[in-house]
């Protein structure tokens, strides 16, 4: 080093300064990017799980199914298949229902009105504005994160045709059965049409649709699950039998 110093003396401090500062910037940027990944993949889940649990806790009613203890023979409740009483669409951001996917266990997910990021990032599952309400003829459509922000729909690819999806409002249980799953482009809004896939057609059945991102950690496509209403049940009359395996797994 001392050999070359006399030659480089004039230019070297300036070059060293530039290289040093650029190096610092690059290292700082790298650390910030790493922090962003930590925030996105970990901290948003911490916050999302907390706010979604609060949304459930702040409901006026208890959305958890009754435990299958001997005193209430839930399986004997008669399924209703006549047209169900339908709620009005609530104000944006209002948590008005919950859902359980028995294949995922007994986790209760809050469903809130709207699909903007301030609903989906905070409250979890969001109900598309203007689509049918639970049990209503039409297409009750919801969206949820598959990764990050509490990732309510993380395990969507495990859902099989025939699986129950159990939705609960204050007074009623709705049991939908999965009819199909598909991967579509983000612009394919016909999946949430009143008759899925057939925009403009008048619905005659109560259906349900879940959308989330696909593949994981990408927004290139959407993973979509369609289901059809099997039956509904007033909460006062019992708990859907579909929830009993889920209850048992806790």
């Amino acid at each position, binding site marked *: 080093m001392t050999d070359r110093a006399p030659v480089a003396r004039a230019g070297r*401090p300036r070059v*060293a*300064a530039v290289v*040093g*500062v650029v*190096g*610092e910037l690059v290292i700082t940027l790298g650390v*910030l990017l790493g*922090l*962003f990944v930590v*925030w*996105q993949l970990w*901290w*948003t889940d911490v916050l999302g799980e907390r706010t979604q649990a609060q949304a459930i806790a702040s409901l006026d009613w208890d959305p958890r199914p009754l435990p299958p203890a001997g005193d209430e023979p839930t399986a004997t409740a008669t399924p209703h298949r006549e047209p169900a009483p339908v709620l009005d669409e609530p104000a944006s951001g209002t948590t008005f229902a919950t859902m359980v996917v028995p294949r995922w266990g007994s986790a209760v997910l809050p469903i809130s009105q709207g*699909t903007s*990021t301030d609903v*989906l990032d905070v409250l979890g599952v*969001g109900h*598309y504005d203007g689509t049918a309400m639970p049990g209503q003829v039409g297409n009750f459509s919801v*969206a*949820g*994160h*598959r*990764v*990050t*922000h509490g990732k309510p*729909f993380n395990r969507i690819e495990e859902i099989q045709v025939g699986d129950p999806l159990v939705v609960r409002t204050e007074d009623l249980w709705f049991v939908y059965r999965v009819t199909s799953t598909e991967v*579509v482009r*983000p*612009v*394919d*809004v016909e*999946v*949430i049409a009143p008759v899925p896939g057939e925009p403009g057609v008048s619905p005659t059945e109560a259906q349900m649709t879940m*959308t*989330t*991102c696909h593949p994981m*950690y*990408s*927004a290139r496509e*959407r993973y*979509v699950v369609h289901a059809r209403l099997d039956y509904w049940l007033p909460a006062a009359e019992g708990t859907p039998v579909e929830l009993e395996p889920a209850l048992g797994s806790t």
Partner: protein
Amino acid sequence: MMDSDDTAVVTVYGMLWRVLPGPTWLKIVVLVALAAAVVAVCFAWVFPAVAPIMPFNDVTVE
């Protein structure tokens, strides 16, 4: 050994180290506190503002 004066003066973090008062342990405490503050600001405001621009968070059809 590197000539610490030359390199320390020209880098931002080196300058920060020299500007901070007190003994080494106090400088470390202050720097850790500063780093924690930067992380907190990023987590609370910067990253939530940047995230919507990122192309992996859309779950809706529109």
